């Protein structure tokens, strides 16, 4: 971080409105500033403005001076996330194919275990608010039964008058193959119910599987009020001189206009975490890493995602806070323990950690807010990894005694003292994180040894190097911006629009038919980018396919360029088979098994001005200065060892550190166990190499 008095050039601003803090990052070509402000509940705007004033001050200017120079304003928000998590969305009415009204409440048999019982997910729509409509298409999109529009309107009228629904969704079987019925129904409803949002499954996301597609439409209708206030914020910013309207960060790790966010609000559900992964991509780009795994230890969970060949892993469907839905998003898994996860003794007398979390209230025992249970953070304090006086840059003074007492209480049950118990909590939490990461690699069929671990904030950097070693990962990167990564991601995201169409063509399919689908997708994505204000010259569109052996559940993405003639189809198929056998082994292959294209996808990226990591010259070499030593009880479990402490502010590009050591950076602490060496690179990223 350099503080120069040079005037700010063309600036990019990224904001991440989280549950507790609103983070703001401001970048021009050469410098990056950041600030944190308390988030305000229920109001999208105020925290954003406060944070922006702060960051402007840090940059030696005022908000009013700064705004006119901002070329790019990215906004990540948890507004949609909160509406889903707290189940406070709109009351939705669903019109679906007659005879299939119960499919949403049945939830395809999805059940989760709660205290021994298996329970279905809470439905986004009340069974009373679902009505069947006479119509039916078959799998080829041929009409089996004509749509009865008068019956549709009668059913909708009843939902509106008797059940006071606040939004309407139309979702028919096979509408992704032929949307004529669904489009006609949505149009008729929009004409009649002019003040209600009307959403259609096929229009939002034409993919196969009626449950996933309907859920996505329901989720969009359900969250259609969550962004209230965003237009007012945009107006206010414009009045203060912001030349371009803010862009919203979506779950796919790109940005979209406010209007588009209003059309598909559900796509903002994973806005913050997706922006974090985009920031990790910027780190990869700067350091030349292509295959990475990101790990973010938050308060309640360990969030991981994979980047391969410079692209984040994506998924097309998944669970969003208990709602299973189709949704193109960066594949981020919340698994394992976070800093607030509580240690406990299970009925077998084995020490366990999580999933119960002390959260922010009462929080870990060492927060001194009334928490009494031993959490991961408490263990880290007891063991000496965390300096009680410098937690979160000194924002909170931690109570070491309370942490020791909590660990001692827990340990009594299994005959361990406080230190041994704390060590146990750390080890068990770490084993859980390793297990979660292993599962991610296994699902994707990747070999972790070729990856780099990017540590993203919180207390994650106290675990990263040990986790990496367990997985035979030889390199860990701890970027300086880790704790405001989502805000940085919001400033550095490209405009990104994506359209998918389920097809299900066996290779080889009719090139003309495939070509027509691709042409439609590309045209639609071009129009999307134009609508988001991207000039045609800055637009690039790639086309990809999701391939699988016929009837498999999971697909592998394969990009292709050029046409879809017979030869190119065969080439795409061969690439799929090569990728498949690399992941699952030659033994998993059967010669001659048919391969099908499950879906075609066009992705448009608008290369707008965005924030970038800026390099500083390496001015130093040799070991970083050791500020002090503190006793840390790590690795071996007998006695604490006086361990060198390096302060983040003393680090200069080029400095080296040899483990064991801790780096107390501004809002994260890095643990470098014995056997690893690190240096600060020119982007102020701590680059750790591990001897395996």
């Amino acid at each position, binding site marked *: 971080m350099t503080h120069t008095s040079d005037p700010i050039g063309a600036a990019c601003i990224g904001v991440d409105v989280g549950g507790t803090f609103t983070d703001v990052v401001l970048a021009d070509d050469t410098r990056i500033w950041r600030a944190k402000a308390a988030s305000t509940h229920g109001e999208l705007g105020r925290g954003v403005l406060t944070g922006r004033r702060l960051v402007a001050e840090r940059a030696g200017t005022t908000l009013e001076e700064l705004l006119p120079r901002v070329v790019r304003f990215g906004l990540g928000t948890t507004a949609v996330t909160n509406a889903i998590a707290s189940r406070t969305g709109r009351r939705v009415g669903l019109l679906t194919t007659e*005879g*299939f009204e119960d499919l949403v*409440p*049945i939830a*395809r*048999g*999805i*059940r*989760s*275990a709660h205290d*021994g*019982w*298996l*329970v*279905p997910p809470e439905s986004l729509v009340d*069974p*009373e608010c679902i009505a069947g409509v006479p119509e039916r298409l078959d*799998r080829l999109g041929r009409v089996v039964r004509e749509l009865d529009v008068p019956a549709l309107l009668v059913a909708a009228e009843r939902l509106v008058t008797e059940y006071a629904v606040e939004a309407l969704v139309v979702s028919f079987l*096979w509408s992704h193959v032929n949307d004529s019925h669904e489009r006609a129904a949505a149009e008729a409803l929009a004409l009649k119910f002019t003040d209600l949002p009307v959403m259609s499954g096929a229009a939002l996301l034409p993919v*196969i*599987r009626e449950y*996933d597609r309907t859920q996505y439409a329901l989720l969009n209708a359900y969250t259609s009020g969550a962004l209230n206030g965003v237009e007012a914020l945009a107006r206010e910013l414009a009045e203060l001189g912001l030349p371009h309207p803010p862009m919203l960060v979506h779950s796919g790790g790109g940005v979209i206009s406010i209007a588009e966010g209003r059309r598909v609000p559900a796509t903002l559900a994973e806005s913050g975490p997706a922006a974090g992964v985009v920031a990790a991509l910027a780190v990869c780009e700067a350091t030349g890493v292509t295959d990475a795994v990101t790990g973010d230890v938050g308060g309640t969970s360990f969030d991981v995602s994979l980047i391969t060949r410079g692209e984040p892993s994506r998924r097309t469907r998944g669970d969003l806070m208990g709602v299973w839905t189709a949704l193109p998003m960066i594949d981020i898994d919340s698994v394992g323990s976070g800093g607030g996860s509580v240690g406990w*003794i*299970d*009925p*077998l007398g*084995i*020490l366990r950690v999580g999933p119960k979390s002390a959260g922010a209230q009462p929080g870990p025992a060492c927060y001194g807010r009334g928490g009494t249970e031993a959490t991961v953070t408490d263990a880290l304090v007891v063991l000496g990894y965390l300096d009680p006086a410098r937690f979160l840059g000194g924002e909170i003074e931690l109570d070491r005694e309370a942490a020791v007492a909590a660990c001692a209480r827990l340990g009594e049950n*299994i005959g*361990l003292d406080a230190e*041994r118990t704390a*060590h*146990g909590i750390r*080890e*068990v939490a*770490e*084993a*859980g994180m*390793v*297990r979660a990461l*292993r*599962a991610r690699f*296994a699902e994707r069929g990747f070999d972790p040894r070729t990856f780099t671990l990017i540590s993203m904030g919180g207390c994650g950097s106290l675990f990263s190097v*040990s986790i990496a070693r367990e997985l035979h990962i030889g390199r860990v990167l701890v970027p300086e911006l880790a704790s405001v990564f989502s805000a940085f991601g919001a400033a550095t995201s490209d405009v990104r629009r994506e359209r998918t169409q389920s097809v299900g063509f066996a290779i080889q399919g009719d090139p003309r038919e495939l070509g027509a689908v691709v042409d439609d997708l590309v045209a639609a994505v071009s129009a999307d980018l134009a609508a988001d204000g991207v000039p045609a010259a800055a637009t690039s569109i790639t086309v990809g396919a999701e391939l699988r*052996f016929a*009837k*498999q*559940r*999971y697909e592998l993405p394969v990009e292709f360029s050029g046409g879809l003639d017979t030869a190119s189809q065969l080439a795409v198929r061969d690439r799929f088979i090569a990728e498949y056998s690399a992941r*699952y*082994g030659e*033994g*998993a*292959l*059967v010669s*001659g*098994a048919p391969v099908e294209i499950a879906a075609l996808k066009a992705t448009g990226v608008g290369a707008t001005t965005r924030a970038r990591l800026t390099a500083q010259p390496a001015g130093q070499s040799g070991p970083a200065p050791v500020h002090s030593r503190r006793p840390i009880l790590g*690795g*071996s*479990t007998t006695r604490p060892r006086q361990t060198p402490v390096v302060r983040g502010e003393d680090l200069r590009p080029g400095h080296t550190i040899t483990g064991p050591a801790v780096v107390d950076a501004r809002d994260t602490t890095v643990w470098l166990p014995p056997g690893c060496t690190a240096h600060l690179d020119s982007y102020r990223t701590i680059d750790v190499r591990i001897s395996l």
Partner: protein
Amino acid sequence: MTTSEHRHIGLDPVALGILRSRLQATAEEGAITIERTAISPVISESRDYSSTLLEANGDLIVAGGALTHHFGVCSHAVRATLEAHGETLQPGDLFFANDPHHGGGLHAQDVLIQLPVFHGEELIAWVVNSGHMLDMGGMVFGSWSPEAVDCYQEALRLPPVHLSRAGVEQSEIWAVVLNNVRVPDVVEMDMRSLIAGVSVARDKLLEIATGMGVESFLHGVGELKALADREMRRRISALADGVYRYTSWTEWHGELYPVPCKLTVADDELEFDFAGAPPQTDHFFNSKPHIIEAILVGDSTDVLAFDLPLTQGMFGPITVRCPPGTIVNSEPPAPIASAHIDVAINATTAAQQCLMLALTASDPVEASHLLCGPLAVSAMALQIWSYLTPNGTPNGWMMMDGSLAGNSAGHDRDGTDLWTFMVARKPILEAIDVEMLEWWHPLLVDFKRMRAGAYGAGRNRGGAGCHMQFRPHGTKSFSGSLLAIREEFPLAGVAGGSPGATSEFLLHHEDRPAEDLAGKSSGVVVGEGDALEFRLGSGGGYGDPLDREPTRVALDVRHGRFTAAEAEQMYGVVLSGREPDIGATAARREGLRRGRLSAAAPARRPGSAGTTPPADLAARPLYPGVEQRGHHAVAAESGAVLAVAPDPWTDGCPTITRALTGTLVERSYLDPETGRVLLTEVVPDGVGCAIEVSPLSWTRA
């Protein structure tokens, strides 16, 4: 974690926690690999597969995948493989088995791929993966025919054989298997997916063992087993010693095969005894002791140890007795295609209900909050359909929607709709989207919804089964087998709840009246213009229906679960518009209760009147709504004396008996003072009470 610090053999609670986490991760990786690479929807969509880690001797370590029923049979399989090939076992060996009579799994379709894990030359563990193959040969597509009268007709069955020997694939075995199945490409792909899974799990297992030292690894695995055994025994000790009985019945077109279970709780052990089961038959549902045990221990510990993973330690304190030569312990030539379904499910249902009876009669323990009615798995009706593809080859599918039965109610909740298992450690199978089904096969689904009707009425009601209809669409016809478990005999409720529904099949024709089909049929043809309609069964209710909250009854009517007339008839709830009429409902319910008492047959052994126990005697539970006070059993709500120890409390209840079919009756036991139903059971006409609750604290009172 650095590896050196755990070189010592004894592992502390932390190291054990880490080891268990890693073992679970390994099994999950094996399972994930299967789901990602298999192609038949039964595996990839419905998750009928598993990945199990076992000790060198076959003891279960831990497993991944949804179906706990698979886990226990893997132990048996490894022991059979050791017996057959233990002498020559070497690194690089890989085994296959699918004969339930000889080293196989739940039925011939569930093939077992078994990989011995060697550390150097030392055998340290096994990985066994199992998955349901679409076809394994035999007389019908899907290898699952109710018509088969011996196991030789059913399927190609292989005892433990080498699939690879010292790393060399045994192409002859592959050739034998693929030559005998109808869809060899699908079967090969699915089998290779299981092989991919065992290899992945083996690599990770070796990494763990090598990292911590083989000796420490083996010791830790043993220690985890001992801990689970100890905890199981502690939990069993908390149950009231005594005897608990529950009988369930298996049907074959009107023939009835009782599956009587007697649970003895003695100190820290459970014994489930099926003495009295009839001799093995020539129907396809004969079972095997290892299958009964695997399923029963899985389901019973889903309740008793709901918060702990299933491991070998849980098998230790549980004994399962299956008399030889009976339907629970058959020998060749007994057909066994449904070895894990009809009889086995009735056995585990009876066993789990015995356990529920023991829980009810015990002081509160960890699992007391899981009281619920019988497993509703037996209300399902799977079907297997086949057709000819345009190029003339056979193809087909297992209709997983046939497993979407409704659940029995719990003591504090309604049964869930369209998916069996109310209580389990993790979600079992998943259903298939209508669009995926229609995409894969040439059919059109006319409708798929919750079955309507006031089945399983109760204070908490049972869930709804699936009601669905489909027809050929893009092919001329389907032919297939129906595998309904409950044709006429519904599942009973608990604590006065009414029985659930049975399965029904109707074949619609374009030009003539629809025909009823027997629940177990084969050679069913759904031709052009025909449509097959089915309604699945469901579990029973919990508690007297007249005690259900009127507002919940009104909501059920609004959701279309049953009609206003049924609400009044079954629940005594009178509706006024969308909401209940409270006054009229109270009067209606009072009238219904009085009517029951006046219609009831007198109690078997009435007249404990005048022996009213002192009100200050501490009450202990005998059955929901029935308490023991001193040596008296009394109806908890009214205080009416029902029996004096050691007589069964049911003896003091007036009863109402209603014919369900020509041979089955529904019998309700009433509180003699209030007319509240304390128990409604379903039994063959002439058979006495199907449950017995005899804790020592009662029989010796």
